[in-house]
């Protein structure tokens, strides 16, 4: 069995040099920032980088599968907020008397998975494009959180869950290990399971996949549920990091996750890229944000730089000559 490292090597093996572009961008970024401000390569900063990457990485793992399939999941923020809400309301908090401990974590992940499952059902059974279906799920999730939280921020007071963010193992916050575990799981699913391959096939050519006997409906539903599972984990990590949950805890996460996936080289049209690309993409985005602060770049132009980076990354990684139509 070819192992993940072998697979990664094949992925970056130079057969298609363009797949190397995101990695090259990441390395160049790191070198430039380290030269400008040596603090960048301090262990403390690397730990902080890993910590800021934890939630976006977990989210982007889920989103990668959906985008690989040629669909989109806009429910990222809604699902994350539902998961964080479930967690906080079931664990020790300052809004009610619950204390279900780690059962709350399990329930939060189940809630996220259920949201994704419903997204999948909506797309396949009601035959609603994922763009619209998951847009609906986004607002359903947000509405649910607003209702359950009564519009306010509820504090998470369960010390053992907060330890996900506050306790360190081998120098890294537990949340980082969880995110890394999420990455490994996603990599195994993509590179070593039938599901991962079928997702790639559907993204490449859904009709052909169907003719080859792939159960497209089941794969789609499973993929959305899987994405929801990762969003659920991300919700737990976000609530643990911030020590609270409010309805808008997911604000801005969708854009960040899509950016990371695309910058990593996964095509929005589906069929190209994967979770390794997304890991690189998340690191690029995180390092860039960190670097801009370290370099003292004015906040007023940071967004502009991010926009430029997205265009540059896509331009580098896409073989535009082969595109017939740009839309």
């Amino acid at each position, binding site marked *: 069995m070819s192992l993940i490292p072998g697979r990664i090597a094949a992925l970056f093996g130079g057969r298609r040099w363009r797949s190397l572009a995101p990695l090259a961008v990441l390395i160049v970024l790191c070198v430039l920032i380290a030269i400008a*401000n040596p*603090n*960048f390569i*301090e262990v*403390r*900063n690397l730990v*902080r980088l890993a*910590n*800021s990457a934890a939630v976006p990485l977990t989210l982007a793992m889920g989103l990668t599968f959906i985008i690989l399939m040629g669909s989109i999941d806009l429910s990222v923020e809604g699902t994350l907020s539902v998961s964080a809400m479930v967690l906080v309301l079931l664990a020790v908090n*300052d809004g009610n008397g619950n204390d279900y401990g780690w059962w709350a974590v399990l329930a939060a992940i189940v809630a996220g998975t259920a949201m994704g499952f419903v997204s999948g059902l909506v797309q396949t059974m009601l035959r609603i494009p994922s763009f619209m279906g998951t847009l609906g799920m986004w607002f359903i999730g*947000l509405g649910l*959180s*607003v209702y359950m939280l*009564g*519009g*306010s*921020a509820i*504090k998470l007071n369960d010390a053992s869950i907060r330890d996900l*963010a*506050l306790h360190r193992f081998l120098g890294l*916050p537990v949340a980082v290990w969880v995110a890394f575990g999420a990455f490994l799981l996603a990599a195994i699913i993509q590179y070593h399971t039938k599901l991962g391959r079928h997702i790639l096939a559907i993204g490449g050519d859904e009709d052909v996949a169907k003719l080859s006997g792939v159960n497209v409906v089941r794969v789609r539903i499973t993929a959305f549920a899987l994405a929801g599972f990762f969003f659920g984990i991300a919700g737990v990590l*976000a609530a643990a*990091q*911030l*020590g*609270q949950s*409010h*309805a*808008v*805890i997911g*604000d*801005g*996460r969708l854009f960040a996750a899509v950016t990371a996936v695309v910058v990593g080289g996964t095509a929005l049209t589906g069929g190209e890229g994967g979770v390794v690309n997304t890991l690189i993409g998340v690191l690029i985005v995180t390092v860039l*944000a*960190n670097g801009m*602060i*370290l370099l*003292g770049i004015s*906040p*007023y132009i*940071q967004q502009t730089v991010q926009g430029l980076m997205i265009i540059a990354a896509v331009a580098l990684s896409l073989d535009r000559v082969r595109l017939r139509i740009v839309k």
Partner: protein
Amino acid sequence: MKDTKNFTVNRRTLMLGATAGVAALAMPSVLRAQDKPTLVTSIRSLSNPYHAVWKTGAEAYAKWAGLEHVTLVSEGNSEKGIADIKAMLAKTGGNMVLNSDPNDTPDARPIVEACAKAGAYVVTQWNKPPDLHPKDFNPNYVSHIEFDGISSGKTIAEILFKTIGGKGGIVALGGLISTTAAIERKKGLDAALAANPDIKLLDFQVANWKSTEAFDLMGNLLTRFGDDIKGIWAANDDMGSGALEALRAENLAGKVPIVGVDGIKTAVDAVRTGEFACTVTSDPFWQGGMGLAIGYNAKIGKFDPTKEPPEHREFYGKAVLISHDNVEEYYKTNVDAKPEIDWNDLWGRVTGAIRT
């Protein structure tokens, strides 16, 4: 057709009409005919703690005054906000009092005009165009209330400086670049810095009012400045609490004081534990209730808006400072219990006319 003009309806008015119709249908039928005016609160959303408290204050006043109360939520959509208000005016026949936090600055004008036309009484807060004045819509446009962002930003900065002993470096987290509140609060910070030359502003960064962004930002700032950061100034409490969690992840919570604006519960808790040095609040509970109270008293003739001085028509309210000195007291009266406010004291928190 004699007059085809009547039949040309453009898409926008059609949609507004449709939205208004739907909103009207959704409202309770008890409102249809009654003598007492209906109290109406129009706010942006219920998903943020600030407006949630606002609504609680409005409901507390309505209960106290024994009146029907309806909350309209614009969800950040100006057209929906305005259309809902118009639907409400139609439903009540103008027999209503509106306390509105308009979604966007330009929205205030159509809202005020619609109310004046229908004979309803209206109080606006925070947002209005500079050339829109209550005195131009006598008597219906009763008052406009704001809170002085410059003064808030300056007050918390001064407390922060005092807490860190009058010297050392601080970092500042600003709100969404384009908003008035963000600009004014930063002006207050700048003024305080000018008066305290021993305090060094290491960096000013923007976290768009969000705790999540502040969380990531703070980690990065710690890398850049490390132990040089002696204090953190945040333009709102949400960002302040995000920064606090970033400090906590590095075992620095409580060692680097934070100040913020809004007085949300997380911040009040943090003031109690000493992790926040202070927060300042416009008191949304008061805003929600007193806005309605001012409008209602004008409506029933308790006072005549046309005879009120300018500082009662467009004024800055008094912000409430919550610091180590008064936090226990504040907690008892505002968090553990519903705040007690004298709803007859309409002008008690006026601090002066709004600067032009």
